[in-house]
């Protein structure tokens, strides 16, 4: 069930578009910010709010990279694996994360703390390689500095 606050936020998002459906992506992101991911039940609630079917909404939700239809950890780390970061050794950093936290791309640590996902270029190429944890971007990361960064996210 959507909370009153969530409903109000959705009402606000809908105002920016000539029809409710236009707010589908905003609505999914809004709810995901609060809930972490979009469960089947939430999907249905949001669809009802937007006056569309679950099929309508899930077709959109599953198209985009940043809508999570499966549970994620308390923190989500987006590891840029695009070309500039690749040249600068993002694979070694990723290897180090695996050593430290026993988690591969697309997985969540067993304690539910961290989900590691690949992401397309974060636009931080001048300080590659880069990683974004939740909403914070960290550039010029190395296998040596990554632990210190991740440890900020408990």
């Amino acid at each position, binding site marked *: 069930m959507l909370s009153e606050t969530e409903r109000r936020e959705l009402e606000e998002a809908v105002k920016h578009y000539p*029809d409710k459906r236009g707010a589908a992506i905003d609505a999914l992101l809004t709810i995901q910010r609060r809930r972490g991911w979009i469960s*089947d039940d939430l999907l249905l609630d949001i669809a009802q709010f937007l006056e569309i*079917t*679950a*099929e*309508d909404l*899930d*077709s959109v939700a*599953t*198209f985009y990279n940043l809508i999570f239809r499966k549970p994620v950890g308390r923190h989500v780390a987006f590891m840029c694996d695009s070309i500039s970061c690749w040249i600068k050794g993002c694979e070694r950093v990723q290897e180090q994360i695996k050593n430290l936290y026993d988690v591969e791309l697309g997985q969540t640590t067993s304690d539910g703390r961290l989900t590691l996902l690949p992401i397309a270029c974060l636009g931080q190429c001048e300080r590659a390689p880069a990683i974004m944890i939740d909403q914070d971007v960290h550039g010029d990361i190395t296998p040596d500095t990554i632990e210190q960064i991740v440890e900020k996210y408990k």
Partner: protein
Amino acid sequence: MATIIVDNKSYSVDERQNLLAACLGHGLNVPYFCWHPAMGSVGACRQCAVKQFKDDRDQSGRLVMSCMTPVTNGTRISIDDPEALAFRASVIEWLMVNHPHDCPVCDEGGECHLQDMTVMTRHVYRRSRFPKRTHRNQSLGPFIRHEMNRCIQCYRCVRFYRDYAGGRDLNVFGSHDALYFGREQDGTLENEFSGNLVEVCPTGVFTDKTFFRHYTRKWDLQSAQSICSHCSLGCNTTASERSGILRRITNRFNSQVNGYFLCDRGRFGYEYVNSDKRIKHVRVQLDQDRTKTAAPQEASEVLNIIGARLRAAHGIIGIGSPRASLEANVALRTLVGPQQFFLGINEHEHQLLSKVLSVLWTGPVPSASIHDAEQADAVLVLGADLLNEAPRLALALLQSIRQQPMERVDDLKIPRWDEAAVRNAVQNRRGPLFLAGSQRTWLHDHATDSYVAAPDDIARLGFAVAGSIGQGAPSVSDLRGEIRELTHRVAEALGNAQRPLIIAGTGSGSLATIEAAANVAWALHRRGKAPRLSFVLPECNSAGLGLLGGGRLQGAFDSISQGKADTVIVLENDLYRRAEETQVDAFFDAAHTVIVIDSLENRTTTKADVLLPAATAVESDGTFVSQEGRAQRFYQAFVPEREIKEGWRWLSDMARAASQETDVDRGVTTWRNYDDVVSATARAAPELAHIGKVAPSASFRLMGQKIPRQSDRCSGRTSLIAHLTVHEPAPPVDHDSPLAFTMEGYRGPVPSPLISQFWAPGWNSIQAVNTYQDEVGGPLRDEMPGVRLIEPDATMAPAWFTAIPHPFQPRSDQWLLLARPALFGSDELSNHSPAIVERMAQPFLSLHPSDGARLSLDDHSMIDLTLEGKTYSLAVHLDPFTPLGTTGLFLGPDVFRGQVPAWVNLFKAVTIVPRRRVA
């Protein structure tokens, strides 16, 4: 017209087409997947690439997608260009990266568009050496099987299901090469037209689940044209059989009627033919006591028995049927004489049917074909529940609402076939569609305005609209403010349209709505518009029966009770669906001899002294007249088991048996084959005079040959009954049609009713229809789309209907009981098909929530409803769209139609069934 040059040859083509359609229309093979003649172009599959040259000096050219390229005069292309050939083969190779190549175990095999296109592009060797992706399939209900691994992502399924048919519960999920076409979760596909996915899907992702249970390859099927018998629209179908089992029904293109699509009742309702309730043997009850079981009788003997009974009879009456062919009804009428022939429909329905026919016959406005309905630019529906009573017409209306927005599309110079661009330009704009009725369905989501009210109020709206259009039509003065505004909106929209369509029907049981619809159409006609009328009728041959004419059912009852006759012949009709049980019981009890001809066991067949097994429509030659007034021929797809015969043949045999000694020539005795019946039918009523033009006569031959019902690859003919005999029996001889029950005969272009299956070299799927059309999507070559029997005279100016009902007044202790027709459940024959039964709703009674409160009924509570001594066990549906003071009764299999509409005291008629406690 424009001239295009394809591989250095000139072709004349319509410039409103795209290049792909233009090429296909000239028989030039260009492969394609995502394009569909009814659904336009979206440019997704890239299969239809051809080389386009700027002019005759351009040697290099560039590849273009023919489906996305408009035709212009002088367009110069090459289909056979090596680069184009290589690219098209590559597209197949890409599709094959993941397609499982499981043709031998795939139901689509042998009629798979993907197979055809693969062969057409000459792709043979797949170079990808990587693992293929796999998907989990979904369970999609009793009609459709799902096998996602075969998917080639052409997007046709979602384009049909969502964009064309208004479905919401199928979609595409995911992205890049991880796409999934299905539902959000496992479950039944709810759209009424889901079965078309079977034909729309170019490969075996969506296949016919009912066919799967008695599967046969397409080339092994014996097929013939049939006309759907599950509602009054007369959709054309192809019925296919092998070894005595009806295997499936597929859509059969008719440009004027159903085009490319059928509804699910029409496609999946066929299994009654294979039902174990089929009457297969002659049964005779020699004992006067009918409670004893009738005994099987030698077929040869039974005619002697009947002959003796008929000769000894003191008056014979015949009761016809709206689900029997015109010919069978004519045969009965001829046998018993016009004065002793009764229509076999209930009193109220008789009245409504006569009204509809007289409106069409005496008024200036023609009836609409389904094709006309698709082209209508404003629609008003009065009282008919199209999704449940005439679904294919509802599908047509979903297309009609695009007509008006298309003007904007034309202004933007977007070609109409450019489907994706059209949708982007049209967005949510819809042409006018006004739905007025006593219940709400999802079709209302597409309506400009809707009005849910009791039938009298619906009729008042119609009368008011007519009055508002003016031209002398009577107006309605005492309308509520909001209804008055609605009236003006409707009148204005219809008045602004060029091709308005008014739809009503018999389903609501309201004579006034039919009259109101007539007034609206006539007023529009007088304003110089080109309106059309469409009346939904109860059954597949209601119109034919009405045109033939005959007495009322009550007259039949009276004949027996008053002793004018003692013998009754009932033709394919369960009278217990037509009249009250006690009345029918009394009727049969009083009759000395009851002869029943029917195909399935029902309560009437149990009353028969002589029961004769009748062939169903797919086992017969005959004619149905659709609600449009269109007479259409259907052919025997196969010869049924030995004793089963067409109704008209039984009647003809009976007449001969009866006349041997009395020498009374009743006409019917001289009939030898089907052509004789058709001639007699043409003479039976002036309206039927042109019935002979519906299809070629039995003597029709091409190159001196008959036309085979089997493909020339039909296999196993010599081994099908090898367990019984190694001698191959001679195929049955067909004296009644130009068709033959064999693989031998004329192969080539034939008049459309004689096409057994759509097939052309290289075109094994249903897409072969293209090769039968001069212009893709247009009429078939030599199309005989049936004969419209009622063409009105545009100069007629009948008097206005003036009996405007009073506003509906809810009563304090009574409710107006209204019919709630159901796509699955209200049709007698399809109710015997297991897949349809699975889709049937639990019987219910709907009430407005405040009426529910007055009766102390909760939503979903169980009740017993007793009407005229008959008790129905029902669930309560509290539904705000049920008009106050009315109640909707689900028209399930065992509900007697005559009980609605009627005023019922629900305080007395309803008893609440206590919920069983959960143990």
